[in-house]
């Protein structure tokens, strides 16, 4: 048969099958009509042959036989059998699910949890690792990199970028971008925004068309234009449709908005969205752009169609070598290369797999649980299976039908699971650390995520459905029909696979709950730590960076002092002071100075130490609530012209001058002019982390240690909300170019405790999940037990056992399983909790309260899980059980 006729045949087959499906009723009617017409023709012939009409018709019908068998065969010829069977299976499956609401509910919820968590984690992996560049034809884009003796580098100077763009033949376009931060002024409000300074061809090469207006182009000098991001447009400008052409103020310079980016585009940096795009021509002078040693830009290149990665890379290498020869001072030893899209994906595959594998374990446990419950239920359905086998169903048919039921369950579970995933994704905002800018990945339940969900759902069907289906199909007919259970496998083994699984789940729950307990106690303890300042005070912190507006040294100090004065004069402000850094802030991590201490022998024979320090002004300690223990605070006299002084923390005093008075001693801070006299000792404070070890700390007068950034610490009498606009206005009035970041005490506290709270929340969620799964597993095992031992229970009751005895029997089984599992879990916890020692504060890794607590919880849950099977066991009627169900 030629290919042409084969394909014509296939097409005919498909058309016929589809037609039969879609116009089923007409098909059935036609079949009936055709068979009837056949009978009529035959009777007509028989009449012609001499029979009476009635006899003829009777004979014709007998000859025909049952229309039903004919129609079945005709349907079979059209390939409708599989389809009809599938529909029947689906209907039957739905009925069975409705008849067993308990099993169905537990199964669907368990699957929803497992599938939902997997889908949510995959969407994170997809957004963070797998997704391509958010541009047109991303497979042709490649990040340009440079390999230097120090390692790989992805930053370039604008001059190098220009040369790349000019010299490359195989890449049709390059874009450069540099991440900056600005302050946007809208009305009376200022907010911090993140902007990208980009090459003028940015939008064109990426293939991004703005939703409103146009993209950046090569602008003439003097025209300052900006493209706004969609989220900023909505949040700050209320999606004003007339935004194009309006002027906005960024760090006190005026820009014209020429376009709004499309809603899905957040710039090229995953996780940190861009608010605005500015052109290099308005942000940097020609001289700055020619400076080859300033590497601030990342570069992306687009390959011409048909160019391979190897070719492009070879050309880049050649250009790199040429640049190194032409500009040896700046570009020497930089080998240019690129990371093509396929390579990026390949590199992202391993972390994605690791991530998915670890979450996949949860799904595996869920499937194992459901398989256990399904096996338990299969016991009760042996009669049904036997009848169907006896009536002629093939074992394959049975397996298919049971798998269809499992598929229905998985389908419902997947649907609910997507809902769970959607809610989990919505938690992202709550889980991120508090920050000034909006962070976060663009998590979506899009195509790849849905595909992945479908795939793992199908896998789940096999995992939890195949074993029970195969088991049921192996039912031997006679014993099942006689409802005789004595031939069932009677294993005296207690350590069956399913029991082991429950033991494992219980042990896992205990470990997770113990970890949660330890973390909770640790968190409670850290909340009680003396931070070294008064965290109850209504303090507002204004982070000022005069350095950005080119203030430095004394001018910066003057600015800060003026700002301090202005804010202090506002009504509702009790006290103001200045500090280079606020304790527990995430910035700076505590900068330090090299200190030598004459007259004191340092450990290990060292000459100097690095000690963390802060620069503060007079009144700081009072404002923050840090207690002065000895000596005095700084005064106005401790200025640039006065003698150098320092205040130290108690830990420093007791470490270097134990048992003596540190006042009047001298230390040399940072170089030979740094001789300071110690004039005061204050209580210890937490510098970087709440749970850190106490370190020595030095305070220097701000006037003697000027800085380009400092924080105004304002003790407020009025609520923060009323004061903040006024304070901002005062600073803007002084110099609008200086960015102001505002934090309150509660914000500071949430920043400081964020990681602890996150760890507790995460572990507790895992613990709850593990316990829930363990409970379901235990329920499954006990339900199976009760089903199998129904007859035995009936005998016991007939021989005089009461309800209470039966209840105790089942509960004992459940509790015994749980206890053994808990024991294993405790042992595992002892070993594993040691790993957590570094994260715990004020709690030993072997804390008995946490251990005992988790065991109690697990036992309670075990009792709860045993309750339903126990009740069912106690409800067994002895006479019925002894006879048959």
């Amino acid at each position, binding site marked *: 048969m030629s290919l042409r006729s084969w394909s014509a045949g296939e097409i005919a087959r498909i058309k016929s099958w589809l037609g039969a499906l879609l116009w089923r009723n007409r098909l059935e009617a*036609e079949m009936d009509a055709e068979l009837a017409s056949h009978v009529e023709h035959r009777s007509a012939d028989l009449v012609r042959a001499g029979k009476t009409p009635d006899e003829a018709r009777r004979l014709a019908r007998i000859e025909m036989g049952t229309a039903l068998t004919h129609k079945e065969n005709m349907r079979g*010829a059209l390939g409708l059998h599989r389809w009809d069977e599938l529909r029947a299976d689906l209907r039957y499956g739905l009925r069975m699910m409705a008849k067993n609401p308990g099993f169905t509910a537990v199964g669907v919820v368990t699957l929803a949890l497992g599938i939902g968590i997997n889908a949510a984690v995959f969407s994170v992996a997809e957004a963070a690792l797998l997704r391509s560049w958010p541009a047109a034809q991303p497979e042709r884009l490649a990040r340009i990199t440079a390999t230097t003796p120090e390692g790989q580098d992805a930053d370039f100077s604008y001059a190098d970028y220009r040369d790349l763009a000019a010299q490359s033949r195989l890449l049709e376009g390059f874009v450069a971008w540099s991440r900056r931060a600005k302050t946007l002024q809208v009305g009376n409000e200022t907010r911090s925004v993140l902007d990208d300074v980009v090459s003028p061809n940015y939008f064109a090469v990426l293939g991004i068309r703005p939703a409103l207006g146009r993209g950046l182009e090569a602008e003439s000098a003097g025209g300052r234009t900006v493209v706004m991001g969609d989220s900023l447009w909505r949040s700050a400008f209320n999606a004003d449709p007339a935004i194009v052409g309006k002027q906005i103020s960024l760090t006190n310079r005026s820009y014209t908005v020429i376009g709004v980016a499309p809603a899905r585009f957040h710039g090229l940096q995953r996780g940190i969205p861009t608010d605005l795009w500015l052109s290099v021509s308005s942000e940097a002078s020609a001289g700055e752009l020619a400076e080859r040693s300033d590497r601030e830009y990342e570069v992306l290149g687009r390959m011409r169609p048909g160019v391979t990665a190897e070719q492009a890379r070879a050309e880049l290498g050649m250009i790199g070598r040429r640049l190194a020869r032409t500009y040896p001072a700046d570009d020497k030893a930089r080998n240019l290369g690129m990371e093509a899209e396929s390579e990026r994906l390949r590199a992202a595959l391993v972390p994605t797999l690791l991530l998915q594998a670890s979450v996949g374990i949860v799904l595996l446990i869920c499937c194992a649980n459901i398989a256990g419950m399904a096996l338990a239920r299969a016991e009760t359905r042996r009669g049904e299976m036997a009848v169907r086998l006896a009536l002629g169903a093939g074992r394959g048919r049975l397996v298919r039908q049971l798998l269809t039921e499992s598929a229905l369950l998985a389908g419902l579970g997947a649907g609910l699971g997507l809902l769970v995933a959607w809610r989990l994704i919505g938690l992202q905002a709550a889980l991120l650390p508090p920050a000034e800018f909006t962070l976060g990945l663009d998590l979506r339940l899009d195509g790849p995520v849905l595909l992945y969900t479908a795939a793992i759902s199908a896998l789940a069907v096999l995992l939890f459905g195949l074993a029970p289906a195969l088991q049921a199909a192996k039912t031997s007919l006679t014993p099942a029909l006689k409802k005789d259970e004595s031939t069932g496998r009677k294993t005296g083994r207690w350590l069956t696979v399913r029991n082991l699984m429950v033991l494992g789940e219980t042990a896992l729950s205990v470990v997770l709950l113990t970890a949660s307990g330890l973390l909770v106690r640790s968190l409670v303890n850290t909340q009680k730590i003396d931070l070294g300042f008064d965290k109850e005070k209504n303090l507002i912190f204004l982070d000022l960076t005069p350095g950005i507006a080119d203030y430095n040294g004394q001018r910066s100090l003057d600015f800060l002092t003026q700002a301090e004065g202005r804010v202090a004069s506002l009504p509702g402000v009790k006290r103001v002071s200045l500090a280079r850094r606020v304790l527990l802030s995430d910035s700076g991590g505590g900068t330090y100075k090299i200190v030598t201490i004459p007259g004191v022998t340092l450990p290990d024979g060292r000459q100097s130490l690095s000690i963390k320090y802060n620069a503060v002004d007079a009144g700081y300690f009072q404002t923050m609530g840090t207690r002065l223990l000895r000596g005095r605070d700084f005064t106005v006299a401790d200025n640039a012209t006065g003698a150098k002084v320092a205040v130290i923390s108690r830990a420093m005093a007791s470490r270097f001058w134990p048992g003596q008075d540190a006042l009047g001693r001298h230390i040399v801070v940072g170089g030979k002019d740094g001789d300071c006299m110690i004039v005061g000792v204050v209580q210890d404070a937490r510098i970087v982390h709440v749970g850190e070890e106490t370190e020595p700390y030095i305070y220097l007068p701000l006037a003697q240690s000027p800085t380009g950034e400092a924080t105004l610490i304002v003790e407020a009498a009025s609520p923060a909300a009323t004061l903040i606009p006024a304070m901002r206005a005062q600073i803007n009035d002084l110099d609008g170019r200086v960015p102001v970041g505002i934090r309150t005490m509660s914000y500071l506290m949430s920043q400081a405790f964020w990681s602890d709270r996150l760890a507790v929340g995460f572990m507790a969620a895992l613990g709850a999940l593990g316990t829930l799964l363990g409970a379901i597993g235990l329920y499954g095992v006990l339900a199976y037990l009760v089903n199998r031992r129904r007859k035995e229970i009936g005998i016991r009751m007939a021989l005089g056992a009461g309800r209470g005895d039966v209840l105790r029997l089942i509960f004992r089984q459940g509790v015994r399983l749980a206890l053994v599992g808990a024991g294993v879990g405790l042992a595992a916890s002892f070993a594993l909790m040691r790993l957590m020692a570094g994260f715990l504060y004020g709690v030993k890794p072997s804390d008995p309260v946490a251990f005992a607590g988790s065991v109690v919880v697990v036992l309670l849950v075990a009792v709860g899980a045993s309750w339903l099977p126990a009740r069912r066991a106690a409800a067994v009627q002895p006479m019925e059980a002894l006879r048959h169900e």
Partner: protein
Amino acid sequence: MGKEKQADLLQGTLDLLILKAVSLGPLHGYGVLLRIQQISGEELVVQQGSLYPALYRLEHQGAIASEWGESENNRRAKYYSLTALGRERLGEETVKWERMAGIIGTILSAVAE
């Protein structure tokens, strides 16, 4: 060919007979039955139970096409006719059948040596 079970062989033969019958002119189901009977010289009566499944199978495969029309006694009947695909198949199957018959004939006429 040798791997087909007995039932398949008969099924294939019936398909061939139906195609031949229909090739001589459009027929309804009963008519196909009659014509096969007729052109076999009344030697072959097709089993009614196999006829309609075979007709439906052939139509599903695209070898014949059906159309409702009026029969000789003014009754509605579904008429089947041969398609181009069916004609091609009829030719190929006929050649195969004749070759098979020849081979079997040769085997059966082998004389003991």
